[in-house]
């Protein structure tokens, strides 16, 4: 490696200092929030019965850990989210391929997809419960319903934006429409696919929680609704915190996957 000039060195150091500062500030902000919250609850500035407090949330969590009920709730929300996420990716990919293969079909269906996508999807959840019954399958479908239409549209748009000259290349090499799909359209849509996945994981989680609100006896969504009804707000806030953590972890996993793929593209 070549010599780094002094100016560049100090620039890099400055950047690094800045990055560390930001990281420290983030953590401090979080700790400050916890301290203020806990302090306010202890000094009765806020009513801990309604607003809970970090220690109460922690104790609730440990309690549920000990009686193992937390595994049931977190597990089922996680399971439902993952299943609906995988189904959304699979089905929307299939649908986008189908639409790409039949341009006429895509023309016919386009307005329907747009309308279904702009619908507030939580409106569908009660209907789904009535139609399909209050079970895990319904929750999974509710999760899917939030993400699938947008996912199909995004992936299909990605497909149709592939450079026509690249497609022409495949034909000049004697390829068929199937080759165009397999050699150009799918590989060049990988970044879009990964991006859609990152969006979808969050949407599926939203859909699943909505589903659990109205049609479940387990899961974090159920815990939130039940907790608020019986004024166990420690449950509610703990569930919200767990949902945050779950969203963060799932998103990070996809980011790792994305970085893996980028190295190969």
């Amino acid at each position, binding site marked *: 490696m070549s010599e780094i000039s002094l100016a560049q060195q100090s620039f890099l150091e400055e950047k690094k200092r800045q990055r560390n500062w930001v990281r420290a500030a983030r953590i401090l902000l979080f700790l400050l929030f916890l301290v203020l919250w806990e302090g306010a609850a202890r000094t009765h500035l806020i009513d801990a019965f309604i607003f809970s407090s970090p220690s109460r949330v922690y104790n609730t969590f440990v309690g549920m850990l000990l009686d193992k009920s937390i595994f049931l709730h977190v597990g089922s929300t996680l399971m439902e989210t993952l299943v609906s996420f995988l189904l959304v990716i699979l089905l929307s990919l299939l649908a986008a391929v189908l639409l790409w293969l039949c341009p006429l079909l895509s023309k016919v269906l386009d307005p329907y997809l747009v309308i279904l996508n702009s619908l507030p999807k939580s409106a569908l959840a009660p209907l789904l419960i009535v139609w399909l019954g209050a079970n895990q399958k319904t929750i999974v479908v509710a999760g899917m319903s939030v993400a699938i239409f947008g996912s199909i549209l995004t992936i299909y748009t990605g497909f149709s934006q592939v*450079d026509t*000259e*690249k497609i*022409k*290349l*495949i*034909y*000049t*090499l*004697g*390829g068929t429409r199937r*080759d165009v799909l397999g*050699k*150009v359209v799918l*590989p*060049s849509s*990988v970044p879009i696919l990964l991006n859609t996945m990152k969006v979808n994981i969050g949407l599926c989680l939203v859909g699943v929680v909505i589903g659990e609100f109205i049609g479940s006896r387990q899961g974090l969504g159920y815990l939130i609704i039940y907790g608020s009804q019986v004024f166990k707000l420690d449950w509610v806030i703990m569930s919200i915190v767990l949902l945050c953590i779950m969203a963060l972890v799932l998103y990070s996993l996809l980011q790792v996957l994305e970085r893996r793929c980028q190295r*190969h*593209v």
Partner: protein
Amino acid sequence: MDPLLTLSHISYSYHDLNGETTALSDISFSLEEGRFLAIVGPSGCGKSTLLSLICGLLEPSEGEIALNGLPLKQASANIGYMLQKDHLFEWRTIYSNVTLGLEIQHRLNEHTRKNVDDMLETYGLSSFRDSRPSQLSGGMRQRAALIRTLALEPDLLLLDEPFSALDYQTRLSVCDDIFGIIKKEQKTAILVTHDLSEAISMADEVLVLSRRPGRVQKKQPIHFEMEERTPLRCRNAPEFKDYFNLIWKELNSNV
């Protein structure tokens, strides 16, 4: 013997909602095996359309195209088409890029692999076999694109402004490069360009197309008195200027 390629009275129109665009009108010419034909004409006069017709991606609205005396559809001859940009896929290595055509046509075997390996070796790309396209210079990418086309062992090679994406200096050397490869592989070729000097420096014959709708305005045989012809040497030959002026006048005669 029949010429390798014959076009008789070819016309082509594009149709869309805004109306009809006649891109080509009454084009006729033929090309003997081993010859190098250059087609020049202003942008939008239908040069790319003509190549798409010859390689069968489009069907002429009128007229016939024959390869070795047979209609295009029945002819068994192989046509290689090199597009303006290299379109090497970043998600493939150079090797799997140049074998893309063979892969599509299910012709990857020992013989074709060896052929590709030899070409990569001869044309200085073997050390980039496993590199990604972005690691190559513009000239090397163009060479890789040509090898991808040649890997299919085409009888006729179509080149659509293959140097226009390169800057002037690279362009001159890549031009020499590609010309050398085509001559070495003894290919019959049609080069399409809007650059008159490029056409004269490479071709045995220059076909001048008029503005849209493109018609054949002039056919000019080109001959240079020299032992080993290369485009760069041709540019410096005394005949070059004469040919240039001759065709230049023709290009501007009916503007």
